């Protein structure tokens, strides 16, 4: 997870520097997406043994995976 977070930080800095000339809205949307990505990374790596997405959907629709 550490390496991935590092990649996210480096990409974010690079993209925000590029987006500076494009306006605030572009940066806000970008940050929103990156925060969502960060949350997903944290969610997944906090317990990699948790039920997969497919399994969660199967349990929701009441089907055997």
């Amino acid at each position, binding site marked *: 997870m550490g390496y*991935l977070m590092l*990649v*996210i930080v480096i*990409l*974010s800095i690079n*993209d925000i520097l*590029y*987006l500076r000339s*494009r306006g605030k*809205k*572009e940066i806000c*949307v*970008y940050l929103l*997406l*990156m925060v*969502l*990505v960060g949350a*997903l*990374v944290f969610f*997944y790596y906090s317990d*990699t043994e948790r*039920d*997969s*997405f*497919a*399994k969660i*959907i*199967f349990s929701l*629709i009441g*089907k055997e*995976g």
Partner: protein
Amino acid sequence: MLASRDKISIRQAIILFIMTVTSSSLRLFPAYAAKTGERAGWLSPLFAMIPFICLVYIIQALFKNNKEANLSDVIYKVLGKVFGKAILILYLIWMLILLGTFMRYFVERFLSSVLPNAPIHFFTVSLLAVVFFAVRGGIVYIARTTEILFLIFSIVFTLLFLLNLSNVEIINLFPVTHYDLWPVVKSSFAIIGLWCIFPFIFFFGDRINDKEHIKRFGLQGTVYLVITAFMVLIQTIGSYGYSVIERVSLSYIFVIKSISFLDTIERIESVALANWVIADFVTISVVMYILVNITKSLFSVSDEKSLVSPFTIFAFILSQFIAGNRFELENFSSYVLVPATIVMGFAFPLIILILGKIRKKI
């Protein structure tokens, strides 16, 4: 003649679509057709062709008076901002799931064929790095690269088919009777499900020229899709019979392994696998570009380049989170992805067209 250097032609868009569905075709069609249609399963593309042609006509009708628009613009125009945004969020989530699934299938193919002990991240990172730079380059670069890759893919695919013809036994494909009609119709379900990705290409419709020719090139694409689907099904079901093919994962690679030409050319599955990777690259790139464009429309932003990074990382995580193992992934595709893609790719555009006509917006 292209009107703008930032745009691609409808012919290139159709090639992008064909290459996008090719990877999944090789994986999905033989197993599904053999399981549902049994001996006559190879005829299923014929029945899948009819709804696909309807879909081409639906898309043509949607863009008849909206030549410079993309699918998001059409959705906004017909449904209004609020409902339009809700539908776009649905499409965004759906495309994210498709992206994660396609990535995972790419990895699983290597793990279950040539490199079973390799770390999963090795494949994911390798492909995503290439896709990242390709998508940042823009759709024109992807489309031009895909034109060349399409040619290479078609040549290799046809050569492998011809080499494999000697293994095909007529007894595995015939007899076909009227009792096979319903199973064949049912087996075409998976093919329709996959081909329903077609409308998603038009999420970057504002980057596609000559949309008045969607019907013409769409129908030409249908011929190519049907022929290649036939080729895949004939060489798989025809070589080993439906009872074997329905039980084998990666039946296409399994069949290619049996090719022997003049007792010198053997074990050429790596060629098929390399060819398959070409298709995977295009699939992932196109889906990611679609995601970027949906996001652009959803948040009314103009920059594409910066949106590639979040979706690349999304793809990396989702490819791991989407399923626990290969069986779960295959079940997820059969029970959830295929039916839902028909709804998102066929039913929704049809509803949008009908509503648009009623409200006189299209």
